[in-house]
Every structure is written in structure tokens, then in C-alpha cells.
């Protein structure tokens, strides 16, 4: 099955395509059968004895054994460990309710901030923006966020943002921006001094030295969602020259 998966890397697959494991390639008399471990990422699901595709997109592969479907969507589905930008909606007792753009609101405990104790409560108000990561995110339970990692350090998470603009883009653009050696990131580096917070839920927050620059960057990013790479580079170079 590993080999059939590898053959189809780069092809467009549709939901319903399946990869079944043939018994021949795990039982072999010549060499000791060492069945390969396969990590199936988003878009692939193991059901029964077959690997099924459940999203339409392109099959990607990473060494040594990671496969996933590269698909496009705008609605975010929470996954454990991902960092998102959330908006605090209510404050009830010990827990904040955070809206991250999913089907329900996530809960964020007031103790999940760095240096927070029962006496020393974090300074968080309704309407604040938080950069947090999911600690519980599955379809059976209410999602939970935290602004500290497992060792208790914040690592940049928590409340941010005075000034700045929050806007929404597609999930594909977010992944393109965060990928290593990203072109969008290197194009942005050459423009203006600015600060960016990228949430995996499709939310971006930008802050720059003037309101006009902030708006320019926000519009640029929203529009380069639907552009090809060459169009994007052209647009960025025009902005750099000061035409816009």
C-alpha cells in the first residue's frame, strides 16, 4: 500500500478513492516482513482495512512516510496543537469563552496563562484577541484552548494587539504563509516594517507603523489569496515602488 500511495503522489484525488492493503506486500518469504508505518494526515482516513480519501485535493508526501491531501477550504475545523487567533466573547467564572470561527466556542481557563494563579488573575477583557493553541479538539468534546505550552511557558501566546487589524483569509493562504521558505513571507519582508500574527483558523492580524500601511498589507494579503505567483510578485513590486 505504501508503494501504491507513493505512485499517486501529486495526483488529484476525490473522496471515495481508496487504497487497500494487498496482503502480498506484507507477507513475503524472502525478506522479513517489516510492514511500513504510514502516517495519514488530513484528508485521509483509515476505515476498516482500507485507507480512504475524504477530501478532494492533491496527494502530498513527505519523507519518510507521511501522506496527506492538500485541499482548500475556508471553514476551520479545530485540531490539537494548532495555534489560532480567538476573540474573547464571555467571561464566566473561571473560564473564558473564545470564538475562533468554528462550529462552537472554545473554552479557555484563566489559569492557562503564564504566571497566572488563583490570586493573580490574567488581565483579559471581553473583546481581546488571544493567540492560543488547542489542547482538546475532537468531534466529541468542546474544544479547549490554552495560552501556555506543556512546560508552562507562554512562547508568545496570550493576549496581543493594541492597534492593528484583524481580517479573514482562506486556510490555504495561511498554510502558504507559514510554510518554510514561503514566498509570501519573503515578499512581505521587503515591504514595510510590520508585525503579523497568523492563526491557523484563517485569521490574520497586522500592525504597521501607520494606518495606511496596515490597510495596504491587509488588502494585499486578502487579494493574493486568488492570484498566481507571478501576479502576486508583480503586485508586490508595484506596492514597493509606491504606485498604490
Amino acid at each position: 500500500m505504501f508503494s501504491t500511495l507513493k505512485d499517486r503522489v501529486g495526483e488529484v484525488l476525490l473522496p471515495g478513492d481508496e487504497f487497500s492493503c494487498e496482503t502480498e506486500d506484507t507477507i513475503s518469504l524472502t525478506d522479513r516482513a517489516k510492514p511500513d508505518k504510514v502516517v495519514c494526515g488530513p484528508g485521509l482516513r483509515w476505515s476498516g482495512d482500507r485507507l480512504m480519501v475524504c477530501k478532494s485535493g492533491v496527494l502530498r508526501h513527505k519523507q519518510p512516510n507521511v501522506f496527506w491531501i492538500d485541499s482548500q477550504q475556508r471553514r476551520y475545523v479545530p485540531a490539537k496543537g494548532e495555534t489560532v487567533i480567538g476573540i474573547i466573547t464571555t467571561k464566566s467564572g473561571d473560564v473564558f469563552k473564545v470564538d475562533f470561527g468554528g462550529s462552537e466556542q472554545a473554552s479557555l481557563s484563566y489559569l492557562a496563562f503564564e504566571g497566572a494563579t488563583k490570586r493573580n488573575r490574567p488581565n483579559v477583557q471581553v473583546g481581546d484577541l488571544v493567540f492560543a493553541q488547542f489542547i482538546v479538539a475532537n468531534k466529541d468534546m468542546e474544544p479547549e484552548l490554552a495560552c501556555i505550552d506543556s512546560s508552562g511557558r507562554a512562547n508568545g501566546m496570550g493576549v496581543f494587539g493594541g492597534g492593528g487589524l484583524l481580517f479573514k483569509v482562506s486556510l490555504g493562504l495561511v498554510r502558504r504563509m507559514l510554510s518554510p521558505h514561503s514566498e509570501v513571507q519573503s515578499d512581505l519582508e521587503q515591504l514595510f516594517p510590520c508585525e503579523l500574527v497568523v492563526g491557523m483558523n484563517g485569521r490574520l492580524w497586522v500592525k504597521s507603523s501607520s494606518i495606511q500601511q496596515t490597510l495596504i498589507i491587509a488588502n494585499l494579503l486578502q487579494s493574493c489569496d486568488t492570484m498566481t505567483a507571478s501576479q502576486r510578485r508583480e503586485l508586490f513590486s508595484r506596492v514597493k515602488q509606491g504606485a498604490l
Partner: protein
Amino acid sequence: MNTGIWTCQNLKLKSCRWSSPSPLRNLIIEEKSFVPCEDLNYGRMSFKGFNPEVEKLMALMNPKDEEEKEEEEEMSRMQTDITDEEMALRYESLVGSMKKKFVKKRDRAAMEEDLNQNVVETNTKRIFLKPQD
């Protein structure tokens, strides 16, 4: 009599279909997030020195490139003054001398040393011998 007659349909057990244990059942790991698949970077970014703390965080949190990792390893090796072998030799002699320090007077007399300065094990430990009648 009808009560004694069990129709075949009532008694027929549903044929047990044991699904053959799939050979790959334990070898598939499902990963719901894109972050480990695509090695995504850290979410906060700052360009041209707008927010120096975020730039420090970026350097910390982003997975380092392979070239940078190799450079770091070389640097760390150059900075050690004593090699590992030397350290091991020193420890060997240190352990022996520390052991000698805490040995009791009786045992000290019994401790013999080889040419290699290895301590030979002493078998006899004096115990109470019951007097024979």
C-alpha cells in the same frame, strides 16, 4: 406438539464472520493537523525590526534549517577543551581513589592491588564460627 418443535430459523445462529485481522491495523497513525505534515513555522512574525521580542521568538521557535544545525554542532565541538576520552580516563582513576578513602581499616589491609591497580575481590568475611563440641 408444537412447543417441542423449534424451527430451524430460530435456532440457527448467525454465522460468525470473524473479520480477518488486518495486517496494517496497528501501523496507521492518523494525524489531523497540517502543522507536522508541512513543517509550518511559528504563527507570530515581525519584519524589519518592528517588534524585537517577536523577532527573538521567531528565531527560537522556528525549526532550524539543516545548514544552521550543522554549523551549531561544529561550534559546540570546538569549544570543549577536554575530549571525552580524557574525561573518561580521569573518572576511572577518580572512582578508585574515592573508594579507597571510605574504606574501613580492616578492609584496607585486605585490599590487594594488581599490577593494573585493580582491586582484587576479597572472598572471606569473618563470621561467627559455632564451636564444635
